[in-house]
């Protein structure tokens, strides 16, 4: 299977001499959902944000479908970013815009600022948006303002917005951390099924080990800025979890 993303020797230090990521090597191929687990502050979020350069790496290489994106800037960077979908913990919708407008912001990388301002999006984008609203079950909410939705609904809009980009990879940074358990499962199901439908890899940062086990095809365990486990969920043992999270009382 062709590689989509190759990360080599990735290091990030927000303060010189205090790296958060200490030499990460990871490869992602065309399909499957990868869950990145690890305790807070271990660099999961930094890792996922470096992939689309919301955070700049200190050292190392990120090869996305043959494009080295660790050093690009400006237009080049924007053109790579629009091929990478991202879902956020706090949904990050534009609160005062309608659900439809929020979906269409997924096309801002393709539509000129002036056309976007005049709400002149190509016909196919609007059609695609309605299709996605059907998929996430919010067809009746197209004209509602984003701030009138519940957390679960917002996150589904967040996922639909990312899918509007017709991304070649989908990143999700703690997409279920602000949601109740039932909604969390629904969101994970949506992420997983959309990854399969579109034939794209999905990379999810997640706190909940059970949820990761249930939905992931592959689990990456991180601790102290390093990858300490990388394999299918079946191989993840309590010993690994002790190593990833430290201590063992919480496992009982």
């Amino acid at each position, binding site marked *: 299977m062709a590689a989509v993303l190759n990360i080599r020797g990735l290091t990030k230090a927000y303060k010189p001499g205090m790296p958060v990521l200490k030499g990460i090597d990871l490869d992602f191929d065309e399909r499957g959902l990868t869950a990145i687990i690890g305790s807070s502050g271990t660099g999961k979020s930094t890792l996922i944000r470096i992939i689309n350069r919301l955070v700049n790496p200190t050292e190392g290489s990120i090869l996305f479908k043959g494009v080295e994106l660790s050093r690009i800037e400006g237009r080049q960077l924007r053109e790579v970013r629009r091929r990478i979908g991202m879902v956020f913990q706090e949904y990050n919708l*534009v*609160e005062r*815009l309608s659900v439809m407008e929020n979906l269409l912001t997924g096309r801002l990388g*393709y539509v000129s600022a002036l056309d976007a301002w005049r709400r002149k999006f190509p016909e196919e984008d609007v059609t695609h948006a309605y299709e996605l609203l059907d998929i996430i079950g919010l067809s009746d909410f197209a004209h509602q303002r984003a701030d009138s939705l519940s957390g679960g609904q917002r996150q589904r809009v967040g996922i639909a*917005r990312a899918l509007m980009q017709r991304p070649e990879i989908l990143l999700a940074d703690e997409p279920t951390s602000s949601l109740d358990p039932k909604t969390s499962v629904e969101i994970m199901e949506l992420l997983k099924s959309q990854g399969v439908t579109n034939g794209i890899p999905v990379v999810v940062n997640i706190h909940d080990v059970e949820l990761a086990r249930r939905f992931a095809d592959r689990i990456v365990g991180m601790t102290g800025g390093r990858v300490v486990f990388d394999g299918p969920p079946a191989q993840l043992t309590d010993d690994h979890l002790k190593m990833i999270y430290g201590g063992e009382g919480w496992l009982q």
Partner: protein
Amino acid sequence: MSNAMATVPASRTWQRHTVGQKLARTALWLLIAVAVALSVQSINVIWEFLWDAPEQMMDMGRRMWPPDLAYYPKTVHAALMETFHIATLGTIFSMVFALPLSILAAHNITPHKGLNLFAKTMLVSSRSVNSLVWALLFVAVFGPGPLAGAVAIACRSVGFVGKLLGEALEEVHFGAIEALKAAGASQTSQILYGYWPAVKPAFWSIMLLRWDINIRESSVLGLVGAGGLGMAMNAAIDTFEWDRVAVILLTIFAVVVIGEVVVTYFRRRLI
């Protein structure tokens, strides 16, 4: 436990201020008293005139009453419309200049210290000069009339609108902007889709407030020849026609009250 309770002295006292705080407060009051005394001395009050003031006020009141209402349709109405135009045009001009300056001043949109400083300097210099002073300058440039007034109003308002709007922009929640960035949106698209919807209510609220202030300010700009109600008032004062001055004052009062009502109505609908 009960032992420990018993050893606590029976007469525990509580005081609001410690001795040091009391001394500091007394010193502060003394300082204020001295400052007031010095200021009164330095403004050279002519006491005869001060004692005379109530009588003079009564006299002026008698001259103002009854107001010469017939004067309103003759002159005041046209001057009032001019005041409206000065305030409205001035507010619109200020918006045009304040928008780019506020974007340059907001450090989250413009991460460039030099540009921030430039924009902030422009905004501060606009605010540091009073409307009347701006009007004096522009009367000298454009000659007396409403144009000078409108430009003066605009120059004073740019600083006000730009500062408040810049602060509103800086308070925009970063999350939505980050999401737009992640979708590959350009800086312009981020402003139009991320920042603008977030600051829109604040923007209209600031513009309405400034328009309200400008109505009041433009009604006195005429005192220095910049058109509007003030010009009519100046003429009436110069010729001691106090009954006409009264009509103008009543007009200003009515306009301010109506402006307040209108602004409050629209602001409530906006937010």
